[in-house]
């Protein structure tokens, strides 16, 4: 089973108020993030999944020569987009993002989108968002659940597949989709023949956000056993000791994504996943 290190602790997200703030204070700048990343490298973690937050990207650049992680950036960075919308409104935010791509490219993307071809738009968006990340180390490019589940809800499989195509064909990387609706997403992509992508989804013994329910998620891990399924939020709720059982119950799982700020937790988790 492959182990992926995550970045939630660097951003203070998905933690209750006090804990989130203390993480934000602890990871005040890129150097602070880099310290934890070096610890992760030292304990044997080789893959790092992160949203394209500027502080995290700077940290990656600081350590990548000594700790050449396999990098798995994911877009879009929701807080960055929210801040931009608060500052400029929806239209202003869209224009601001597009403007960084250059006017000619923007016009071309707009014209193609008019005819229902979105690959060029995704190409621009991805190139803009992953700018500054050491490209040779990038192994996959992910679409975060705020975007992927939005498109899923709209039933825009064509757009999900357009992202897939652009990442695979133009960037020569593996597409990756974060989702809170694993069975629906699995049927939309893997079931539709788009099998060379990883799906990252909540999986934990408490059934926290394992939509539509834990049993269904487990049955879909088994249903698509030959595809790359990666569990996140595996320690959410329930008993930590249940994690081992959960993983044994679903050996079809390809990997686990977890984040922590403590080296001791990295080591114990690696042992829990039976690869330490």
């Amino acid at each position: 089973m492959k182990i992926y290190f995550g970045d939630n602790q660097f951003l203070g997200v998905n933690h209750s108020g006090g804990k989130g703030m203390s993480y934000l204070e602890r990871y005040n700048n890129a150097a602070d993030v880099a310290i934890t990343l070096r610890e992760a490298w030292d304990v044997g973690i080789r893959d790092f999944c992160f949203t394209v937050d500027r502080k995290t990207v700077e940290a990656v650049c600081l350590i990548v020569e000594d700790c050449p992680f396999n990098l798995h950036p994911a877009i879009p960075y929701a807080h960055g987009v929210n801040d931009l919308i608060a500052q400029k409104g929806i239209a202003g935010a869209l224009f601001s993002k597009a403007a960084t791509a250059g006017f000619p490219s923007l016009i071309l993307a707009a014209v193609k989108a008019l005819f229902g071809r979105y690959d060029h738009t995704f190409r621009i968006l991805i190139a803009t968002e992953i700018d500054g990340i050491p490209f040779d180390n990038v192994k996959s490019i992910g679409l975060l659940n705020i975007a992927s589940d939005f498109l899923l809800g709209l039933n825009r499989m064509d757009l999900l597949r357009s992202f897939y195509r652009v990442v695979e064909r133009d960037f020569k990387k593996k597409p990756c989709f974060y989702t809170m609706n694993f069975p629906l997403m699995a049927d939309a992509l893997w079931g539709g023949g788009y099998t060379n992508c990883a799906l990252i989804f909540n999986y934990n013994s408490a059934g926290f956000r394992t939509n539509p329910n834990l049993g269904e998620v487990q049955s879909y891990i088994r249903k698509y056993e030959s595809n790359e399924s990666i569990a996140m939020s595996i320690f959410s709720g329930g008993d930590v000791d249940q994690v081992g059982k959960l993983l044994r119950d679903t050996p079809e799982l390809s990997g686990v994504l977890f984040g922590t700020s403590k080296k001791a937790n990295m080591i114990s988790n690696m042992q829990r996943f039976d690869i330490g």
Partner: protein
Amino acid sequence: MIRAIIVGAGRIALSHLPHIQNHPDVELVAIVEPNRISRFVIHRLSKIKVVPSLDDIDRSCFDAAFILTPPQTHFDIGKSLIDDYKHVFVEKPLTLDATQSERLIDAAKIHRIQLSVGYVYRFHPIYNKVRTVIDSGIYGPIQSANIKMSGNVVSEKAPKSWRNSGLGAGCLFDYGCHAIDLSLFLFGRPYNVQCLEKEEFFRRGVVDKFLARLEYRDEPNFDAGIFCNWSDTTVRKAGIIVELDMLRHSLWSDGQLIQVRGDDDLDYSIKDLDTDVPYYLRGEEFQRQLDVFVAGIKQEEKNYDYAEDAVLCDEIISKLHECAL
């Protein structure tokens, strides 16, 4: 299958649209949006027919409507649809005038149609758990309460919109009304409302921050402080904090966690609650709110309790809006 339309394709529509399109019992037949650019974008995104006006839709082709327009339009659109026997979901606040809101409920009752209001925190697992804890009475009566909503959603540079200019602008009508409604959800109808503080940061007449006191004089006797600041740059994600002092315990919650402190400490995490939903986007509450609206349409006996609280909420908003400090 319930045939539905969406009226208004602004920012909040982006949260409702995927749930509506993905719901097995709802068929979205059209979207109404007067702005040409928004119309173009929402059509490209949803592939649903988009028209500039309600008059462009044959009213026999839909059963329900989601009114997601700016608040000052809610009454006219809502009344017209309810009078046509359409089930109506209205984004919060219900209207800008409690008398008008009352008229909407009266019409809904007469026509026996479902009327729901988008106070989405009522469907949030954690705040439902807070209510269960209060109702259980295990920690004794409430002595005092605070509900605080903060966010960084409107800035000085934000472009002019209904949120920050004109009728219905300001945080009383947007984020702040969630805090007021949550107070009604948790504690019921207050005896009295007092405005303690209001601040305008960017535009004259547009409230960006307020502090109010809701007085509860039935059993139990306590005051609830309601606070909102929607231009707090230190906040990364808008959210509501509930603080309660009870007889021998205190309770604190931020939407992820409930901490009870006293003789015996106890934590409830959202991770321990039932979070299963058939489709998830931005929290369980949007899906559950939609499910309740759909269930209400199907039920013979309609329930207007939440809509009546929305009228009360409008009454409180008006009092706070009109009070001079």
